[in-house]
């Protein structure tokens, strides 16, 4: 089974991010970067599919700056066979540009599956997977929490509002991974050492200008301090009034 996994380097969700002086980007100083957690599910799933098939290749593909190599080594340490970095100065704000570059790389290479995380936790745009599928002319199932492959047919389960949607699709296909798909492995220490020796091809690319621009980044407003409206049953009418008239949630 030949599987491509598209991965992204993102700031650790535990990191406190600061906005850079230009007001439109993050100040990366002191920020810890990780493999996007949803991409980790995708990598794990690819490795399991390859193991189950008994043969094949798992290739991780990333788009970004040179530092993305460290993130790619994490995926290689988990067990992916090789990596391709489409090197750019920065990841574009316009997901279509990313999808176009990835599609150009992935086109006509005979993949059985292309896996992505359902969303990158930094810009949360959810776009690249479905766009990539469209550009490659492949079926796409997003936010997959369970995946079964039988020959040329796949069955995926998606968690939707109040239930589970079961989707059947032909492969090759593009699948975006949701939490619950699997429990990603820790990269074992031998894997970390082996990752150093695995091929990681760096290919500088030039992206189109794109149509989306980031104008400004601002942190969410500080939450106002709560107010205690009273105590016990006597406070209920005032609480209901405040929720209805001030907070407008009732």
């Amino acid at each position, binding site marked *: 089974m030949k599987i491509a996994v598209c991965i992204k380097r993102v700031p650790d969700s535990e990191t406190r991010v600061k906005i850079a002086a230009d007001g439109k980007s993050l100040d990366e100083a002191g920020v810890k970067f990780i493999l996007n957690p949803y991409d980790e599910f995708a990598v794990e799933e690819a490795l399991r599919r390859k193991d189950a098939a008994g043969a094949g290749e798992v290739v991780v593909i990333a788009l970004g700056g040179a530092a993305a190599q460290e993130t790619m080594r994490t995926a290689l340490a988990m067990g992916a066979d090789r990596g391709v970095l489409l090197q750019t100065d920065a990841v574009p704000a316009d997901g279509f540009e990313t999808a176009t570059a990835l599609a150009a790389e992935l086109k006509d290479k005979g993949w059985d599956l292309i896996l992505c995380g359902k969303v990158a936790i930094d810009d949360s745009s959810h776009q690249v997977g479905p766009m990539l599928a469209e550009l490659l002319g492949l079926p796409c199932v997003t936010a997959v929490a369970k995946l079964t492959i039988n020959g040329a047919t796949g069955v995926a389960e998606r968690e939707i509002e109040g239930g589970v949607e079961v989707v059947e699709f032909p492969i090759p296909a593009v699948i975006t991974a949701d939490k619950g798909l699997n429990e990603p492995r820790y990269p074992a*220490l031998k894997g970390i050492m082996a990752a*150093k020796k695995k091929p990681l091809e760096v290919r500088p690319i030039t992206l189109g200008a794109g149509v989306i621009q980031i104008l400004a980044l601002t942190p969410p407003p500080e939450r106002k301090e709560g107010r205690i409206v009273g105590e016990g049953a006597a406070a209920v009418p005032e609480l209901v009034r405040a929720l209805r008239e001030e907070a407008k949630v009732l």
Partner: protein
Amino acid sequence: MPPKYQGVDFYNVDGLLSEEERAVRDTVRGWVDDHLMPIIGDAYVAGKFPRQLIPGMAELGLFGANLPEEYGCAGLNNVAYGLIMQELERGDSGVRSFASVQGALVMYPIYAFGSDDQKMKWLPPMAGGTVIGCFGLTEPDYGSNPAGMITVAKETKDGWTLNGAKMWITNGSTAQVAIIWAKIGAKDDQNSIRGFLVPTDTKGFSAKDQKGKLSLRASDTSELVLQDVHLPKDALLPKSAGLKSPLMCLTQARYGISWGAVGAAMACYDEAVSYAKNLIMFGKPIGGFQLQQARLAEMLTEITKAQLLCLQLGRLKDAGTMTPQQVSLAKRNNVSMATDIAREARRLLGANGILAEYQAMRHLANLESVYTYEGTHDVHTLVLGQEITGLSAFE
């Protein structure tokens, strides 16, 4: 959910680590978060080593991680190995001790003093966690002075017969194999000390857990008795020669302890900072009071110094120039500072600090053992004294 543990790195020591070293550290840190932290409080109170962790530790490759890949080990450098010890002891000194004994005190002497057959037979299953080892050097009457040991090995026509007793042996009752140090010559001849590989199911070998420990409760500590234990000729570690052989093992283990202690200190500091920011007293977080700030400032300073100490020690070890005296300095300093930090963290936590739900008191109790084992603080002081003056306080 509490925020995930982020470590302590005030001086960007991370910037001095390689990508692989950081990756190893992060892997072990994540594993400790997910598998060790949720169970360690209960294991400690129950006084049981959490055996269920062994397969996971083996799968990650934590046992003998700095030994070569040909024996099924990870082949890491010594800084990465140190970082593993740091992260394990961030969880618990007892669990780090388990890994130290397996790797530095049993796998290392087999690697350093064993025959090719012994290495191939024992190292791969030990790396895989299917064989657990223990290290029998200390005796009931010979702790700081191992040269005085009275365990003897007599050569017979087809092998060896061992008699004696060992005490304070980590993993003693869990182990399938024990490295036993014994004299093959006269009682006062420390040059006749040799190492023997003793399968623990050999007739005449018995291990009994030491009861009533108030420290390292999540670790097995045993007393070993060897009564006419007959061993084949190839039980001898052929390249072991005199007291310096077990001391070389201790240098390996002490190196790991120097890093481990920093992990315990980082855990206590992390807990203290979070507690100080959240506990409101007199209308503000206790972290706003100067007394607590002084505590935290002192902790961070000592941790940062110790981190740099470990890192340089590791670089020296990787360069092959590290001396046992340099290890003594790091073990002595780091365990002592970690014990002080655990105590101060315990105090900052107030009454909560005595509960198993928090970490500080457990680390404090553990570190009192670490202060004493693997060369007591005092012995390391005298090792340094001798190094400085050229005059031995022992003789």
